[in-house]
């Protein structure tokens, strides 16, 4: 099993090496990077490339490690007991399997995505150490051990909101998705928009990288924003000339709403445009 990218996802060589190392040695792979560089999509693409089922576990601030293993629905059992339901005698009826359990007992080797692990409490990754290391855990209520017959491929993403504990990091491979350079970006665009006009892509990319260079932006536009913007440009049938015109009045790029998501960033761009206009008049 080797991951070499797919026809809908452009990978750099370093990412491929990291994924293959994680797949071969059966260790979790931790992915970090700027928002919108395709961290979450990676798991889906790895699953697709390897023909494996994908199990997604999206972590929230309230998620506990236990939720990934199993939950004991005490309230349901309590209710059943008060109603005199026969199911109440078997505790198994009230154990709800979590995503890890699902992944450990899958028939074929699955890809398990633990998305945005840093959203949860600081202790969350520590609580999963043993489970991810040995790929087994103990269910207290039924006194059984669930262990993985086939170790799943685990991909973990993080947005760097919290630092992850060292013990957790030691058990993972790590990859930082860098913001793609222009060549890679061209390949990514080509994958998503086959048959798009070359002139348009060149003009759009130039403008896109220019916007990214604007100093003081709160949120720089990323790959996913570029793709959305291109989709809009194609849908609205904007001619490439409109992107290339350095006319001072139209200095805000067309449909900029797809690129800049904050009011302040738009203002910043407008202010710079104003300064540029003034300079030009001064000359």
């Amino acid at each position, binding site marked *: 099993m080797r991951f070499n990218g797919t026809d809908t996802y452009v990978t750099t*060589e*370093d990412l491929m*090496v*990291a994924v*293959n*190392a*994680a797949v*071969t*040695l059966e*260790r979790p*792979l*931790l992915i*970090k990077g700027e928002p919108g560089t395709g961290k979450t999509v990676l798991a889906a693409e790895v699953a697709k490339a390897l023909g494996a089922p994908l199990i997604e576990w999206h972590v929230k601030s309230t998620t506990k490690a236990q939720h990934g293993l199993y939950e004991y629905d*005490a309230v349901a059992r*309590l209710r059943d*007991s*008060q109603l005199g339901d026969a199911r109440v005698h078997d505790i198994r009826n009230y154990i709800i399997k979590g995503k890890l359990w699902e992944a450990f007992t899958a028939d074929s080797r699955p890809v398990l995505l633990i998305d945005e692990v840093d959203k949860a409490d600081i202790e969350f990754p520590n609580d999963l150490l043993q489970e991810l290391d040995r790929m087994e855990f103990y269910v207290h209520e039924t006194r059984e051990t669930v262990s993985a017959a086939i170790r799943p491929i685990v991909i973990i993403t993080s947005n*760097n*909101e*919290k*630092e*992850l504990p*060292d013990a957790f*990091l*030691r*058990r*993972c*491979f*790590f*990859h*930082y998705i*860098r913001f793609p350079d222009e060549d890679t970006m061209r390949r990514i665009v080509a994958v998503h928009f086959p048959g798009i006009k070359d002139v348009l892509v060149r003009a759009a990319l130039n403008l896109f990288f220019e916007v990214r260079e604007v100093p003081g932006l709160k949120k720089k536009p990323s790959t996913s924003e570029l793709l959305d913007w291109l989709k809009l440009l194609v849908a609205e049938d904007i001619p490439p000339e409109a992107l290339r015109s350095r006319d001072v009045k139209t200095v805000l790029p067309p449909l900029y709403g797809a690129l800049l998501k904050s009011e302040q960033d738009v203002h910043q761009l407008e202010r710079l445009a104003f300064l540029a206009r003034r300079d030009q008049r001064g000359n």
Partner: protein
Amino acid sequence: MFVSFFLTLRRANVPASLREYLTLIEATEAGIAEFSVDRFYYLARAALVKDERNLDKFDQVFAHCFKGIEATIETLFGEVPTEWLKKLWEKTLTPEEKALVEALGGWDTLMETLRQRLAEQTKRHQGGSKWIGTAGTSPFGAYGYNPEGVRIGQDEGREGRAVKVWDKREFRNLDDDVEIGTRNIKIALRRLRRFARQGAATELDMPGTIRATAHNGGYLDLKLVPERRNTVKVLLFLDVGGSMAPHVRVCEELFSAARSEFKHLEYFYFHNCLYESVWRDNRRRHAERIPTWQVMHTYGADYRVVFVGDASMSPYEIVQEGGSVEHWNEEAGIVWMQRMLHTFPKSVWLNPTPERHWGYTPSIDMLRQIVGGQMFSLTLAGLDQAMQALSR
């Protein structure tokens, strides 16, 4: 196998552990690197570095440790041996040109000089007559007029690039002693959290409810608990004006991050050193002053105190009565600082001056001793340490 590389990494403060090193060896044996230095670099990076802040250090160490190896491979498989170049050269040059080369000391000297200049020169260069660059008369560079000019940077190395990936050091700006933004500050500030349940009971207490229900003979007995909140309390003292002007931006960022991160935050301004009064509004700093005693009496000892200032001033401003540059102070700054630290034992000083310059300013050293060594640089790493010190 790569023990010295591993040890050099650790010496460069990349926190790689033995376990990670073994993982790397295991992966190499599994054939993931497959005889390519580039792939080995990627693999080693994925296995040994777990934080993007350390990627730059890793790149430097890798470049240092594997420079020789890369060069060996290069000469073995890739590059044209020097002898061939020389032959080709002799063929294309006219006898007069050869004489000129000889005049400069011959091929070997030329190459040696080139090597030296490459080592000396660090910037791109154009024109001129000594440095390597384009369009000059120096023997080294491209598009020049010197007949024995050596072309540099015209052709690409093996695999279409001359610079190796790790030499590019693309992660340079992720090193953690530079640049900090509001978001990053917030994350650093989050280390300072004290969770407690206070106030009205609004959350369902599951374990409590189950226990109470069991006691109740199986009939539901709901129990509620108050919500968990961050209860840490912070007093922020900011130095303004004068030598703090260059650090305004980073202080603003820190301030806005702290405002949104801490529910109980009180802030005050001072100038250079703490004296008998502080103020909250810089426009009315002379009209509305708050006595420092009042601050110390108002807030409890459970408040954590953060001073932000460059601590760069004349030592008299700290130790001498009347030493302040703005007014006549009855008691020296050091007295007020000590009172403050006595009232609020958990205090740190954040200093926006780069740490390596601290030694040159005596007043920084003095204040550092006054705050019991708890002075940290206003960088992400420093902030992290400061918050750790505060939460102890």
